[in-house]
C-alpha cells in the first residue's frame, strides 16, 4: 500500500441523520476515514453503530427520510449531493456492493445469466453474446463448477455459499475499483465462510481493488483486513492496522470488545462483559456515546473529544491516557 498516493476514497465529517417520529436520529456522527488502493479495510461495530448506514450513504442508497452532510470523495469526485444519473454510472461500475443475504439481492424470477449480463450490457454497452461469455468467465473465477451450464439456472437452484459466489461474480463483472461488502459471510457456515474469505483475498490481489469489509466478527477482521475502523453509536472510535488493534487496543471500547469474545485458542473461566445496553440513538449522552458503559469514564468525556494520533496510522477518539 502506497500512502503517498491520494486515497481512493476519503470521507470527511460524514453525518447521516434520519427524521423519525420522536425526533432526529444521528446514525453516523462526524465520520472521517480513508481507503487506499488495494487494501482491505474492516468496519466493525455492533448493531446501531452506524456501519451499514455509512456505506448506504456512500452509495446514495439511504432511506427517504435520511440526510447526508459532509463530504465523500471517490477518485476526486464528490459523492455527497451527486445527481442520481451520475451516481448510477459509478454504482455497479466503479463501486460495487455485496450484501449479507444473497437471496434477497438476486431476483428469484430471473436466470443468473440474464441478471449477470444485464450489468455488462448496461454499464459497458456489451452485446449479449459477449456479456454472456464474460459472465461465464467470472463465474469460473469464483469457482462455480460447470459455470457454462449453471449460468442458465435460477438463484434457488444454488446453495447459500454458491449464491454468495454468484453475487461476488456479479459485483466484479465491471472490474470495480472499490468493493463494499456488507457482512457478506455472516449468514454462511464457517466452512463456507472460510472459502469465501479466501476467494475475496485472491480476487483482491488479482484485480487490484480495494474492499470495505463490514462485519461484527473480530475473527473475520483478523483473517482478511489490513486496517480496521471500530465504530460505536455513530462514532468512529479507533482506526489502526489490525496488528495494532489486536496487540494494543487503546480505546476502552475496542479493548472491552476484544475481551468479551470467547476465544477458541485459550480458555477463561468467566467472560468479561461490557455492562449495560447498546446505545439508543434517540437519547445519546453529551459527548462520547460510550460513556454510560465505559470503565474509564471521566468528566472530560462529556465535552468535545478530538481525534488523537497515537502512532503512525493509529488514531482514536477518546480522552483516556495512553502509556507510550
Amino acid at each position, binding site marked *: 500500500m502506497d500512502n503517498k498516493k491520494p486515497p481512493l476514497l476519503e470521507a470527511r465529517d460524514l453525518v447521516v441523520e434520519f427524521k423519525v417520529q420522536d425526533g432526529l436520529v444521528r446514525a453516523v456522527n462526524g465520520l472521517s476515514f480513508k481507503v487506499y488502493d488495494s487494501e482491505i479495510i474492516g468496519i466493525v461495530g455492533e448493531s446501531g453503530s452506524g456501519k451499514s448506514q455509512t456505506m448506504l450513504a456512500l452509495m446514495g442508497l439511504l432511506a427517504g427520510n435520511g440526510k447526508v452532510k459532509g463530504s465523500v470523495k471517490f477518485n476526486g469526485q464528490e459523492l455527497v449531493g451527486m445527481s442520481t444519473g451520475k451516481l448510477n454510472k459509478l454504482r455497479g461500475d466503479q463501486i460495487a456492493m455485496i450484501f449479507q443475504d444473497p437471496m434477497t439481492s438476486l431476483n428469484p424470477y430471473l436466470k443468473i445469466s440474464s441478471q449477470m449480463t444485464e450489468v455488462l450490457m448496461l454499464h459497458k454497452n456489451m452485446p449479449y453474446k459477449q456479456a454472456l461469455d464474460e459472465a461465464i468467465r467470472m463465474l469460473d473465477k469464483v469457482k462455480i463448477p460447470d459455470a457454462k451450464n449453471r449460468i442458465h439456472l435460477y438463484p434457488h437452484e444454488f*446453495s447459500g455459499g454458491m449464491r454468495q459466489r454468484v453475487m461476488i461474480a456479479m459485483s466484479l463483472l465491471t472490474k470495480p475499483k472499490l468493493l463494499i461488502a456488507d457482512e457478506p459471510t455472516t449468514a454462511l*457456515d*464457517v466452512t463456507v*465462510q472460510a472459502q469465501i474469505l479466501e476467494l475475496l483475498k485472491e480476487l483482491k490481489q488479482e484485480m487490484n481493488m480495494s474492499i470495505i469489509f463490514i462485519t461484527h466478527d473480530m475473527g473475520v477482521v*483478523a483473517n482478511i483486513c489490513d486496517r480496521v475502523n471500530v465504530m460505536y453509536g455513530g462514532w468512529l472510535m479507533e482506526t489502526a492496522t489490525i496488528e495494532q488493534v*489486536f496487540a494494543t487496543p487503546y480505546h476502552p471500547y475496542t479493548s472491552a470488545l476484544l475481551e468479551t469474545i470467547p*476465544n477458541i485458542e485459550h480458555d477463561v473461566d468467566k467472560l468479561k462483559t*461490557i455492562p449495560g445496553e447498546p446505545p439508543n440513538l434517540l437519547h445519546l449522552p453529551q459527548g462520547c456515546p460510550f460513556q454510560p458503559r465505559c470503565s474509564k469514564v471521566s468528566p472530560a468525556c462529556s465535552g468535545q473529544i478530538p481525534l488523537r494520533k497515537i502512532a503512525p496510522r493509529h488514531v482514536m477518539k477518546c480522552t483516556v491516557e495512553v502509556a507510550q
Partner: protein
Amino acid sequence: MKKILEVKNLKVHFELGGGMFKAKRVVHAVDGIDFDVFEGETLGIVGESGCGKSSLARALCGLNKITSGSALFAGKIDLAKASSKEWNEVHKQMQFIFQDPVAALDPRMTVAEIISEPLITLYPDMKKDQVLQKVLATMKLVGLTQNQVNRYPQEFSGGQCQRIGIARALILEPKILICDESVSALDVSIKAQIINLLQELQQQLKLTILFISHDLGVVKHICNRILVMYLGNIMELGNKQAIYSNTLHPYTKALLSAVPVANPTLEKTKQIQLLEGDLPSPVNPPKGCVFSTRCPQADDVCRASRPKGKIIQEHFVTCFKA
C-alpha cells in the same frame, strides 16, 4: 453420573411433496443417532446449517415428531411414544430457549403474561398472587427489574428480550434447558452477558443444558461435552478437551480450522483445511459415509459403506480412518 436423557437410534424424517403420480421424497434430518445426556452437564451440539441439530432439539422437545427410535427421559418416559399427558410432565422439566429473542415473544402480551404462561398452562390451579410472586422472583433471577413487569416486548432491547425468554423457560424450574442458537442473534457485548447468565444459572439451579450452536468459540467456552453432527449423523462425540485438542474426525478438523480467530498473526499463518463444495442434500444422502463427498481422506471404502461408530481415546468417532 445419572443419565437424564438416553437417545437410541433416533430418526427424524420429514416427507416432502408427493402427489398422485409423484413419489414422496424424504428429508433425513436426523438419521439414527445414539447419545446420552448426563445430569448437570452442558452438552454442545455443533454442525453446519442443515446438519439436523435443530431438528434434533425440536424433536426432543416435542416440537417435531420423532419418526423412529427412542429417547428415554429421566429413565421413565420414552419421548417417541409419549402421550400428551406425559408430554405435560416432560415440559415441566424440559424447556426451550429460541434463537431470535424478539420473534419468540408475543408482541401483544406483557412481560408478566409471557413469563407466567407456562406456569398457568401446566399448573392451572395455582393462585394468581402466587403466580405473580413466582414471575417476579424469576425476573430477578435473570437480571430484570420488577418495574418492567407490565411492559411489552417492543420496549426491550434484544439482550433483554432474551432474558425474558430465559425467564419464561426457568419459571417451571426445569431440569433441562435446550438452547437452540440462543446467543447467536445477539451483539458481541450482549452475548457475553447472556453466556455468563446461563452459566451462573446452571450452577445455581443445577441445570442440564443442551447448547446448540454453530459458534465453536462459544461452545468451547460453555460446554463440557461436544457432539459434532453432519447430515443427520454423529461424526464425533467426546469431552471438550478431547474434541478440541485431540481431534480425530476429519470433519471436526476442517470445522475447527475454519473458525476465524481474533488474532492476526495466527490467522495469517494457520493452515485452513478448506472443504470443497457444499453439504449434500439430506433428501438423497451419500450411500457411504455422509461426509465422503467432501472429505479430503475419503477413499473407495468410505464411499461404499457407512462407518460404524467406535470408541477411540475416549471419543466416539464415526470414521474408517480414525
